[in-house]
């Protein structure tokens, strides 16, 4: 098997897995199952990143998305009653509207993006890992956002603490 064929095969497997698990997230009627499907989705996306040579993101995705965020969500699921039943992730009355709109958003994106003249660049063949490049960029181009993110995290921290804390305890 050539490299290209492996790559192709890997892509299709991952793509299908990603989309199917994504669909499961929004179709499963049990919220815990949906959360597990979400973890799967994030997991597959991480491998898609790797296909795109984005090793740093692969790690980040696995750690943060597939790791941390679902944990938070599961916590939330556990903390809210009614969550474990089979209708804990039921559809609201908007299913038809939702389907139509989601389909048209998808259709719109496909119709516009497929024929688009995307910017074409030459990916440097010698690039072994992206971490070094991104790290350099973070202190050059993205120094300010890097600092702002710290503010953002501070905000998130304060916010989560203030809101989640029970009064009188």
């Amino acid at each position, binding site marked *: 098997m050539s490299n290209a064929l492996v790559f192709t095969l890997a892509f299709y497997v991952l793509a299908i897995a990603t989309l199917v698990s994504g669909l499961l997230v929004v179709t499963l009627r049990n919220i815990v199952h949906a959360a597990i499907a979400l973890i799967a989705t994030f997991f597959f996306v991480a491998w898609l990143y790797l296909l795109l040579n984005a090793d740093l993101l692969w790690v980040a995705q696995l750690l943060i998305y597939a790791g941390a965020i679902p944990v938070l969500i599961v916590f939330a699921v556990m903390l809210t009653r009614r969550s474990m039943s089979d209708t804990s992730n039921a559809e*609201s009355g*908007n299913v038809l*509207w*939702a389907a139509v*709109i989601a389909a*048209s*958003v998808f259709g*719109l994106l496909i119709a*516009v993006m497929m024929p688009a003249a995307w910017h074409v660049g030459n990916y440097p063949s010698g690039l072994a890992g992206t971490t070094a490049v991104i790290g350099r960029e973070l202190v050059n181009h993205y120094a300010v956002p890097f600092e702002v993110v710290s503010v953002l995290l501070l905000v998130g921290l304060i916010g989560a603490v203030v809101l989640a804390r029970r009064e009188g305890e």
Partner: protein
Amino acid sequence: MAAPYSLMYLIVLLPLVAFAVMFGLTYENKRVSAWLGILAVAGADVISIWALISELQKPIHIQYGLGPFSDFLRFADVHFSLGILADPLSAMMVVVVCSVSLLVQVYSLEYMKGEEGFVRYYAFISLFTFSMLLLVLSTNYFQTYIGWELVGVCSYLLIGHYFKRPAAAAAAKKAFIVTRFGDFPFFVGIAFIFFRFHGHMGGAADLDFYAISPLYHAGLVSQGGLFVMAMLIFSGAVGKSAQFPLHVWLPDAMEGPTPISALIHAATMVVAGVYLVARTYPLFAANPTSLVVVASLGALTSVMAAIWAVAQDDIKRVIAYSTLSHLGLMMFGLGVGAYSAAMFHLFTHAWFKALLFLGAGSVIHGVHTQNIWEMGGVGKRMKITTWCVAIGSFSAAGIIPFSGFWSKDGIMASVFATANPVFIAAAIVITFFSALYTFRLFFVVFTGEPARRRAFDPKKIHESGAYITVPLIVLAVLAAFIGFTGLPGSKQGFGQFIFFGKHPEVEAINYIAIGVSLVVALVGVTVAALFYWPRFQRFSAPAFNARYARHYDWSHNKGYFDEIYQALFVRGLVLRAGQATAWFDKNIVDYFVDGLADGYQLASERLRRLQGGRVQGYAIGLFAGVVAIAVVALVFGSSGPLSVVSGVGR
């Protein structure tokens, strides 16, 4: 400019000052106020007689601006002015106005004694005198219109003197409004004249009578235009002089105090219309058609009023219709070209009609009723009054040699000269009925036994005091003898003093006219005697009236004009239009206005419902919106296949 003309402004000023002082300073003091008014008008009278004498000696036309008011409005190229005009016509009128006013005021000292609003009454008479003099001495249409309106208001105020009586209040309003119907075309006529002749005044103020006179012939206006112009001006005269069809206000105006009827509604204000036509005679003369209209309307009014007068029961109303008839006669005269005679009749009429009214007032003062059938036999108890009224009646009926005869005769002559059978017939009818109603009144009131009236002792009737009788006597003398100033064929008569156009030749005496009118008048007196003088009574008036009930009712109800006007115009047109407009505003205009507001309210209620409160709804709106915008932009935008827009970018 020498006296007396230079002093003529005082004629206008004195009564005005009297009015102002009365209202401002002496309102609480009846005596002082009344005498103030009398003295003021007496002073004015002296100056006006002086002016008349000067004019008689040397007829002259003089006019000058009235102090600060000579530039009443002056800017750009417009100039409206108030001034004093002295010529034979105005000099004659001034004397009439001042003298009658003086006599009436003296008369009122007793007549109005103890009445509520005594000073108000005197003040308004002064104001009226001022206004009337302003009108008479006017140099131009503008000033005339001012005076015109002012006398109208004074008339309104004085008719409404007894404002507590609903009838008086209504009559005052009616007089004012009905005259306004004549005034507004008059006003438009002035505008028309201004529009045509402004810019051709050659230095004179706009609308100046003497400056405009030659312009009527200057070809600035077509004959049709002149006719319209004349009719518009004439409309004013129709209203003020109570000519048909605006005659309805004058009989009602008798709700005012009797001396007021004598002053305003007999001698002065109501003849202002006649005076106006005379003053603007050049305009009418420039368009003969207009004179025919004047004559016809005058004759019609005169005939109708004369007929109606025969069927009235109120002493003042009889005289009022008599006034109407005589005013019609004056118009008739002007219309047939008897300018001098018409003016002469105006002159004599002032005295004898004032005399009749004041005499009637004296009777009312004694008898305390106005219904002639409740009177009777007054002659025995009020001798002076009776004799004076008799003179007045002879004069009014046109019996030789009293003044009315001579002036009426002049008009008759001119009517006969037209050889128009309708006019001649009209003149005869007028003459006959004038004599008839005048003496019907006289016989019913003064002869026979005192009529019986509940709770009234005829013995209480006694002659009035000197303040009443002296003016009566003065007027009787004038009514008796003033006619001789205008004897037909005289070389220094009235016709040689006040005339239109070239200085007239001495006219030949028209004996046919004299004869016919005298005979007809005597027949009228005889008929009256046969019906109403107990001593000679041959026919029963009630029986006659019953036999011709339909005719009598028509006449008694003044041709039903009041009722027709009320139903047709007041109720039918004006009030209904008022209700219609008010309804339209409320139900149509506001319907749309309120509807717009309600529409917004409704739209708001609907739009609110889109805000369902569920966050997914918002998300749906958000994504649906984005998709919709994107589709529209992609399809119809400038890059899309169905591009319809092309914006401006930079």
